[in-house]
């Protein structure tokens, strides 16, 4: 049987979004795994799905992977509405690498892949298995029983299995959990390679640096979708831009120096925080934080003002917030909301 749409490796990607999720909710009895989640993922995009333990990430992947039926809401996966009747065809177009790779430990690496190649009814199985194993650098272990593989190697077999059918969309549920930094870097390289081939990737992870480096966009999840956007957008949305200023001695009248500067909205003295970025700590240093409306204007003006006031300017640095700051800020808000 010839299947269309299974050729994402070529430049001609299918049109329309790869995944559309609209008000999707999944409950297990009383417990809500995720509620009213809506987002789109475009073809060719690497979409990061972040959230604390129990946030509903795996359940979302399982629902989109047609393993669980949603309680309410709609979704489209690989161009097909997420319904029971479309299950087989959706599963043909996607591949899921679950949280634990789930290999038959008594079977060899190649036997595991052969079985799945059969389930996908693939042609040229030998060639595909060889390519998949080469992609994860495991060709020389093809004959080893999976029981004899380390966790990282098993993870890679799981990845090879997910690649077998050339899926349009690849769901990866924490592909680097439990891997050492080197093995994780290998997986990152692989994901990056797939992205360049135009494979759409839905990546669940706890590693924020990983999401920041690999993902075009991320969604932060905590039962509900808390925010979604490009990592740099999220940083800007959530954190006011600031300018950190450090002088050798405290300014006599900081308000006179900073108030009314172009692009500056307000200021406050920075409390001693030796570990903080550009820490003012140390003998005699003084720190100020300016909140900005326009960094381009503010930085030179502030520098001139400080110097003009006769102070020794030690450092002047724009704020840098990582995706981790965004994440922690959002999840902290949730924790506070819950304890209130």
């Amino acid at each position, binding site marked *: 049987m010839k299947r269309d749409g299974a050729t994402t490796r070529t430049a001609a990607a299918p049109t329309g979004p790869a995944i559309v999720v609209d008000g999707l909710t999944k409950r*297990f009895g009383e*417990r809500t795994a995720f509620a009213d989640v809506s987002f789109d993922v475009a073809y060719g995009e690497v979409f990061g799905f972040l959230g604390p333990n129990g946030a509903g990430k795996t359940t979302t992947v*399982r629902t989109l*992977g*047609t*393993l*669980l*039926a949603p309680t309410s809401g709609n979704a489209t996966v690989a161009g097909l509405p997420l319904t*029971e*009747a479309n*299950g*087989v*065809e959706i*599963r*043909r177009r*996607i*591949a*899921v*690498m*679950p949280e*634990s*790779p*789930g*290999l*038959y*430990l*008594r*079977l060899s690496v190649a*036997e595991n892949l*052969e*079985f*799945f*190649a*059969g*389930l*996908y*009814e693939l042609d040229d199985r030998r060639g595909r298995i060889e390519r998949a194993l080469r992609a994860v650098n495991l060709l020389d272990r093809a004959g080893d029983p999976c029981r004899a593989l380390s966790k990282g190697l098993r993870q890679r077999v*799981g990845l090879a*299995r997910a690649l077998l059918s050339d899926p349009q969309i690849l769901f990866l549920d924490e592909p680097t959990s439990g891997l050492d930094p080197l093995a994780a870097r290998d997986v990152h390289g692989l994901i990056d390679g797939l992205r360049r081939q135009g494979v759409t990737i839905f990546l669940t992870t706890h590693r924020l640096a990983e999401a920041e480096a690999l993902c075009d966009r991320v969604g932060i999840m905590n039962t509900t979708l808390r925010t979604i956007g490009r990592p740099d957008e999220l940083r800007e949305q959530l954190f006011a831009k600031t300018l950190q200023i450090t002088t050798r001695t405290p300014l006599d009248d900081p308000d006179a120096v900073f108030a009314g500067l172009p692009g500056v909205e307000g200021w406050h003295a920075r409390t001693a925080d030796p570990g903080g970025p550009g820490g003012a700590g140390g003998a005699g240093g003084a720190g100020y934080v300016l909140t900005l409306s326009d960094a381009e204007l503010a930085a030179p003006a502030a520098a001139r003002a400080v110097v003009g006031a006769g102070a020794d300017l030690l450092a002047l640095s724009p704020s840098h917030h990582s995706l981790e700051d965004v994440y922690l800020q959002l999840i902290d808000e949730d924790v506070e909301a819950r304890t209130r």
Partner: protein
Amino acid sequence: MNALQSPLSWTRIRALIRKEVNDYRRNRFIAVTMAVLPVVFMISPVITIFKLPADAPASRIDTVVGLSLLYLMLIPALVPAVVASYAVVGEREQGTLEPVLTTPVRPTEFLLGKALAALLPTLLISYLMYGVFLAAVGAFAHENVVHDIFQAPRILAQLLFTPLLAGWSIWVGIAISTRSSDVRVAQQLSSFASLPPLAVAALVGFDVIKPTLTVALGLGLALLVIDVLAWRVVSTLFHRERLLTGGVKA
């Protein structure tokens, strides 16, 4: 059910069978069960029959032969029960169910693959043991015993009941497996549940019902109906979500 309307993929079913057989060849418990159990259930009736004296009364011969054949039928009842009860729990324990269910495989195909993977070796082993039994008895037992064993209805009943008993054990084993979270418990329950249909075989074996061709065929038909009903029930149990989460405590 739309899964039943669309044609089943034999490619997928074949892949499942091959995987299953490869897997339990290397599963010590299952391999030993499949190798040792049948031999025990074949040798012990052979010994009993050899010990029959030449001048044993016909009624005694009938009883011993009936018991022996019943013993042989324990093979198609018990062997697939042990194998099939491993079918779903075993996968769930290894965490392999989730990746399998994310492929295009349909629950019906999954179910059939599992069932056939248990049925085919069972038939092979059961008929082989029955063949060895017949050969041994035919060569060395007393004339009158041989005559009793080689009656057409007895042979037909044995040949017919073997797949039907196996069928029941497989469906029950898979049903228990679907709902269970512990391999050992599932295997014990299934072994137990595989025995009731043997009562039918026992009726023939012990001459409660005279073993005629009609009786053998009639009882075979009854077992077939039970098997089909069991398959229907198991099919409805076989729901993706239930498979994935069923039995496992959240």
